[in-house]
């Protein structure tokens, strides 16, 4: 059966090269001109524990990790027991015959990958044996894998040729096992390679690239899953004159350090996850109150407390909107695809500069380490905004009243004119503490009025005339979009609304919400956080929630959205 789309999952124990296998297969497919998306799940430990890594290969851009699995490579009995039920009809399991046996007659066959790899003279080629078997099952052209292997291992070293030869042989041996077993899962359609340049990148790398493209100069952070790779990226790349990158002693140090740097004129950022974000609460309040530009990336994981450090959840939305005590509502950008991670990374830096305040970039585990091939961003299309600086003509009053009818007054920078005190206590025009009502009133209004400056984030509006609209946020966009497409194809009259900016919402999005009859929000949390925030604004929103630690499956969403369309509002 010809298919445009296959999901291949490698399951076993952490440290068995699962991610390496999925990555190699995805890169080979991307090289061949397919669109790919990887997704991994693993326990929070250095080695071992049940883990899996999968790749979805398609002739069109991949929106999500898919419904089920077409080929499962199960490296131990536990992996087989726990992933077998995810197989699609017609799917096949390749099991590790060196580890365990399964009774005759099922939708599976065994492979002795280590043994076959050793026979090639390269014991490390075992994952290529598995990949060869997988390729055979979906009729993926082995020469495409050869080309990838040749490129990957041509490193100008002695022995490159031997390694390439052994890996290519390993692929053939794996493929022969599948032929002998007599299984076929389908035939992957020929690719339709895009005519534009592509990069293969994860969400965390994409947002780092985006922020850097907008002129990020100062990054400090503290390791925490799943945000650590942003720190690693910055430590490797944010170098050069006028830049600074450092690992500090805690998230409290991190937020306060970027606050000091933002005050001193630098475009500053840190990245963290839930527990670290909680520690940054007070510092974020100070940044809002003293009006210091900075960006905090929250890569969500399951919460509360330590929660599920390496699982997908969208449950930090409340805390990102209102991270600190007092009258605060932060700007929040929540990208939903790898490509959006890049552009939101850039926009978050620009927003912070534009409105002279803190911005939250809300990512998630489901995006952080997922690899995807995307169009190479055109840097000439990225604007790099810098805060306006105080000049001689200004009255030198940093905290003057502001009603939005004039440009936001410039910000004084230490070493330059306009010395003032950046103050977390309520203050007067030059930053001295005062508790007089008129100052608290005018500055509270100023701080909220500045949010009007924040626009330009990506949004999507389609078929909204009938009034029933599906509005996902963050990474739930992918499965929701596939569900939406299937529902439209089956004749359901349903609209699509999506916004990377969750606060402030673009005017165009608000207009749609104003006239919507029902807004259905698929989101990965228990409380239905986004729909409740929409209801708070008076919009008729209701959630489809899931809190399994896993992303939505499009097929499940098709069912649950259809129920909501027919049953009527159940707010």
């Amino acid at each position: 059966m010809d298919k445009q789309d296959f999901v291949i999952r490698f399951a076993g124990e952490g440290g068995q090269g699962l991610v390496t296998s999925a990555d190699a297969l995805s890169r080979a497919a991307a090289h061949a001109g397919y669109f790919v998306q990887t997704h991994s799940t693993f326990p929070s430990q250095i080695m071992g524990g049940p883990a899996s890594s999968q790749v979805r290969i398609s002739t069109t851009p991949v929106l999500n990790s898919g419904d089920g699995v077409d080929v499962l490579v199960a490296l131990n009995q536990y992996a087989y027991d726990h992933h077998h039920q995810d197989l699609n009809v017609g799917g096949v399991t390749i099991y590790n015959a060196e580890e365990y046996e399964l009774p005759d007659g099922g939708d599976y066959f065994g492979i002795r990958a280590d043994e076959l790899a050793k026979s090639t003279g390269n014991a490390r080629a075992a994952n290529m044996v598995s990949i060869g078997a997988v390729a055979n099952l979906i009729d993926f052209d082995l020469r495409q894998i050869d080309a990838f292997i040749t490129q990957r291992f041509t490193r100008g070293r002695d022995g490159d040729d031997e390694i390439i030869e052994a890996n290519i042989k390993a692929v053939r041996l794996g493929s022969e096992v599948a032929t002998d077993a007599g299984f076929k899962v389908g035939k992957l359609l020929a690719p339709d390679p895009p005519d534009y340049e592509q990069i293969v990148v994860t969400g965390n790398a994409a947002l780092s690239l985006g922020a850097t493209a907008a002129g990020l100069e100062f990054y400090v952070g503290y390791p925490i899953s799943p945000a650590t790779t942003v720190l690693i990226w910055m430590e490797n790349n944010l170098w050069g004159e006028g830049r600074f990158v450092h690992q500090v002693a805690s998230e409290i140090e991190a937020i306060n350090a970027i606050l000091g740097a933002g005050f001193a004129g630098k475009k500053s950022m840190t990245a963290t996850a839930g527990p670290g974000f909680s520690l940054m609460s007070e510092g974020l309040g100070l940044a809002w109150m003293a009006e210091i530009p900075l960006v905090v990336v929250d890569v969500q994981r399951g919460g509360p407390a330590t929660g599920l450090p390496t699982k997908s959840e969208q449950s930090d939305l409340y805390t990102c909107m209102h991270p600190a005590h007092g009258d605060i509502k932060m700007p929040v950008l929540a990208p939903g695809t790898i490509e959006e991670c890049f552009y939101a990374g850039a926009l978050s830096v620009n927003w912070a500069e534009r409105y002279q305040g803190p911005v939250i970039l809300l990512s998630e585990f489901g995006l952080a380490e997922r690899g995807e091939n995307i169009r190479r961003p055109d840097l000439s299309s990225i604007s790099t905004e810098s805060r306006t600086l105080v000049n001689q003509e200004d009255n030198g009053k940093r905290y003057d009243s502001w009603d939005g009818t004039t440009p936001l007054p410039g910000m004084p920078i230490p070493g330059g004119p306009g010395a003032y005190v950046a103050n977390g206590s309520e203050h007067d025009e030059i930053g001295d503490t005062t508790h007089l009502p008129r100052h608290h009133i005018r500055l509270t209004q100023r701080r909220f009025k500045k949010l009007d400056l924040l626009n330009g984030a990506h949004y999507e509006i389609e078929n909204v005339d009938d009034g029933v609209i599906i509005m996902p946020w963050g990474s739930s966009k992918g499965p929701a979009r596939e569900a939406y497409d299937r529902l439209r194809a089956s004749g359901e009259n349903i609209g699509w609304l999506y916004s990377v900016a969750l606060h402030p919402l673009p005017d165009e999005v608000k207009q749609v919400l104003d006239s919507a009859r029902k807004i259905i929000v698929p989101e990965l949390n228990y409380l239905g956080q986004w729909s409740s925030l929409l209801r708070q604004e008076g919009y008729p929103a209701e959630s489809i929630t899931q809190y399994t630690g896993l992303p939505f499956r499009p097929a499940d969403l098709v069912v649950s959205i259809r129920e909501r369309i027919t049953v009527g509002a159940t707010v």
Partner: protein
Amino acid sequence: MSKRNPEYDFAWCPGCGDFGVRRALQVALENYSTEHEEPQANNIVVAGIGCSGNMVHLVEGDQPFGLHGIHGRALPISFGVKMAKPELNTVVVAGDGDFLSIGAEHIGPAANRNLDVTAVVMDNGVYGLTKGQSSPTTDYGAVTVSTPLGKIETPISPLRHYMSIGVTYIASYYSSKPRVLAKLIQEAMNHRGFSIVHVQSPCTTYNDTYEILKGKPKEGIKGLAYDIPEDHDPTSVQAANDLLDRPGIPLGVIFKYEGKTLQDRYQELQSKAPSKTNEQLLDSYLLKV
């Protein structure tokens, strides 16, 4: 800024030690600026929360930049300021509660980095702004509003703590002689690395220690404070530790060590660090077909 700002609504109690420290800081900032031929705007004062933190609003004359942040976090804020603008003079002002209780976790990292900032710590042995609770330097057994039956923790020894954790300039003084204190603060500003000037700054309302510090010379009663002997060698770790073994409050420079600062170390890395343009960074992810 108070003199030109009638709406500023904070005041220290009459006789507060912080007046003397304010005077000393002001003189030190002015003299430092003159010495280095720089405008006052090249100085940044980062303050925490407490009576001491209000220092940042009370400097008179030409104004430095200020940041009045949150309780305990003046050091990490100053770290960000300093690494963003290494050429500017960054000073932290904090109290004993601010610096040694809620903010104590930041002293170690600042010392490890040898961060080139100067901390002026005003120690009055009490939480004054919240009206008289016990602080890390309050004596064992002391009765305060939050220890009505007596404090059951032993007090921290700040100078020993700084010494053991690797602070590279440590001075101790009291608030009563602002001109001498100013010289110490200026010397600390000129020190390349993390410097702390720990000042006994009595709280006349909740913990008036003037007499304990200075004694009653006319009646022949000795105070706790004593001038550090002229033959003390502050570059010697042994001498500094010996000094801190003596009872009393030493007045003067206890220890100083000129080593590489964080900027120095960072600069060394910069010279061998990769520097890629944004285009090159993107290209490193190119899908090569």
